[in-house]
């Protein structure tokens, strides 16, 4: 509903992210099995699936925190080495499902750390305090403050990250990720634990991020959030990609419904969504499967 036109025009450009045959095994457990996924410039792509489906593991494979057992991940056509810092340098930034801020650093410092790859003042320059060091430091601070304005945290820049309320900690994770000027932002359950107002604000934030030219791949359990925002949605069940398509296609798919009914959600919002999906199913019967590639 939001950006069909954009998606269409960019259909033929190089995908910003192309994951091919990503498989991740932990001993006997195959957490992710031969998953293909593409994200094109300017897209918001959703990744949904029941708990334990392997969504976070897939993110970890994309960002180099895990070395995938098989498969490869390419960013703008170049294959990424499985090293987290190189992935970030290339232009993929992420947030974490269980917030991983630098708790004893201030809000501003957290964002400044996010700028690490986009600045290069080394130890020598820090010790000598040359004018170039001061300039770079100043520029970093300004850019970080802009990001804090953007996420609505500017007034709290001097607070310790650990003292922020939960919703603001999630926002700070987004600001910190944006500080590395990514071409693709990976969000792992950005609204988990948020109240409806905060969720709405996060939706706006994600749209604003996309409007600034950053593609977004988002894991989320809140179906309203997914279906409002995403141009495409992929469903992961037991490590395998079940289906990928527009919100309508996915909502209508029987197997998605089965998967969700088979493994019910934790918490109240989930059960709402199941009801919604069921309702949708009553109207439509066309199921459509689509491959990432």
């Amino acid at each position: 509903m939001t950006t069909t036109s954009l998606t269409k025009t960019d259909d033929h450009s190089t995908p910003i992210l192309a994951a091919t045959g990503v498989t991740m095994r932990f001993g006997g457990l195959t957490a992710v099995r031969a998953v293909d996924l593409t994200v094109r410039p300017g897209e918001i792509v959703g990744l949904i699936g029941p708990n334990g489906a392997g969504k976070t593991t897939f993110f970890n494979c994309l960002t180099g925190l895990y070395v995938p057992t098989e498969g490869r991940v390419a960013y703008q056509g170049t294959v990424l080495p499985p090293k987290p810092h190189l992935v970030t340098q290339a232009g993929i930034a992420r947030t974490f499902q269980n917030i991983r801020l630098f708790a004893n650093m201030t809000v501003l410092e957290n964002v400044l750390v996010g700028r690490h790859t986009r600045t290069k003042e080394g130890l020598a320059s820090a010790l000598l305090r040359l004018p170039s060091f001061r300039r770079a430091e100043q520029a970093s601070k300004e850019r970080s403050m802009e990001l804090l304005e953007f996420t609505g945290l500017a007034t709290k820049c001097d607070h310790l990250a650990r003292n922020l309320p939960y919703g603001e900690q999630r926002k700070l994770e987004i600001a910190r990720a944006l500080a590395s000027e990514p071409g693709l932002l990976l969000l792992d359950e950005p609204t988990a634990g948020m109240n409806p107002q905060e969720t709405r604000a996060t939706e706006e934030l994600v749209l604003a991020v996309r409007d600034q030219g950053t593609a977004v791949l988002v894991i989320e359990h809140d179906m309203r959030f997914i279906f409002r925002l995403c141009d495409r949605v992929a469903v992961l069940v037991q490590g395998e990609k079940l289906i990928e398509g527009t919100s309508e296609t996915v909502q209508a798919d029987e197997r998605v419904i089965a998967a969700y009914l088979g493994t019910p959600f934790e918490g109240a919002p989930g059960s709402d969504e199941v009801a919604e999906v069921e309702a949708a199913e009553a109207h439509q019967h066309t199921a459509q499967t689509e491959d990432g590639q």
Partner: protein
Amino acid sequence: MTIHTTTLDGTSPPLPLSPTLARALTAIGTIGALISTFVAWTWTTSFPGNLTVTGYPGGLQLITLTGAVLTTVYLIVGYGIRGLRWLAPAGTSGPVLYLALGTLGTTWYTLLAITVDLGGLANLEPGGYIAAATTLIAVIGALGLPTDSATDPRPSPNAPGPPSWYRLRRALASVPPQRAKPLPVWAEILAIAIAFGIGLYLFTYGIDTEYAELFLGYLILTSFGFAALNSAGLIARLTALTTKHHNIALAAAFVAAACFPFTQDNDTYTSVGAYILIFATVALGLNVVVGLAGLLDLGYVAFLGVGAYAAALVSGSPESSIGVHFPFWAAMLTGAAASLVFGVLIGAPTLRLRGDYLAIVTLGFGEIFRISMLNLNGTTGPDVTNGSMGIPNVPSLKIFGFDFGENHNILGYPIGPFGNYYLLMLLVTAFVVLVFRRAAESRIGRAWVAIREDETAATAMGINGFRLKLLAFALGATLAGLAGTVQAHVTTTVTPEQYQFAGPVPPNSAFLLAAVILGGMGTLSGPIIGAALLYLIPAKLDFMADYQLLLFGLALILLMRFRPEGLVADRRKQLEFHETGQLDVPDQDRLPGQGIGITKAEA
């Protein structure tokens, strides 16, 4: 009704006395104690410090007198006299209680020491009994003073234990001070200067104490006095000032430290000062590794050793296996470079390990260094270090014709060899302080702290974990090596036994780590204060040498239980001055470094 009771409960003191009675008791007790110091406490001069004279105080009586005077001052401030309120921006009941306790502690300790040293209570004169009784009365009175703040959220009334215990903890808890009236800049700078002047005086007094009893009495009163000033809110004020004018504060600290040798008329205690500086500088170097980057290094003293050995070998010592004599600047560079190389060689393979593994491997490497130095003696290995004999007769330094081994007159004050080395070492310390601060407040320093806080998240933010950890390790090693080059000349002999993992004489790896943790990890002043305490206390209380490590362990356990962040708290102190009151999250200490509400599996 409920609210009413809680409020009453909030200010009600540990002892249910009426405020007037409590004040009167404290005043009577304090003035009694004050007077008692002018009376004889014992009959014989065989207890050090002559406490036999009626008419003026002597020895440990002076400490009691100081405690009583300070208590009186805070009692008077408690009457709300204009012009004195700045002494207690957070209230006076806490400071009075702490000071009364400190006076009681030091007095009773003195009387106990007399009884034990001279063999029996019979050695106490009536003056002693009066001192004991009056200090006790003062404490009882102080326990009845209304507690300073009812709004302080900690400790909560639901805390376990009897209510009186809870009230006592409340009475001793520190209360955030009221906001300061803005002072003119010159007044703020003057305040900083005065504070460092007092600091220098206290340090000099402690180092100059001639007998262990006096030092212990001094230690008891200064600890309680410090707690009192903290409870009065003055420490928080001072921290705010030094944060605001940090360059001036650093300069003031440097000047105060440089004044120290000029207060001494011989070299006895200046040597203690020089050793403290060496220890403190190395601790600050370790703070880069442990405090900033969060790498637990248990073999750090080896880098000091590398620097010292390198400097000793090129010092022109007749016992050196290399017959060269470098000028000191070249020796310093050699020592620092040797340490740097050694640091990279050890760091490169080990820094891929995390946590406990790194600690064990660095511990191993520290011992390997010491044992190698033992074995490079010509029989079990090539002859480089003379084995356990070490490299003796490291000649004294000569820089621009200034011989560090001789007495000099500087500005009319006699400065001995240790004084010279103290001043040289102070320059090295200042350099290390500068490096530490500049490194910490930069992109690199932030990356180190990020790695310390959460290495996975740090790498996901684009930080090359291994490279930055190696950089921290190498910088830490270089700084220790630099200190080592001076150490070789101060000790004049470099032996493997100086560089153990743990031993009774600092610096060794265990004491270095303790100085960092005790002082406050990641802070600038913490490790320096920690090192000063850890050097001075064992040096002064040599009669306890046999129990020293035991007491040291006990002190560390107590500290970690009651103040896990160390003596100097990192950042939080600064942040407490934000008007937003964001620290209202109760009981921070109980939530160690974690985000809230983590429910799902690790990312």
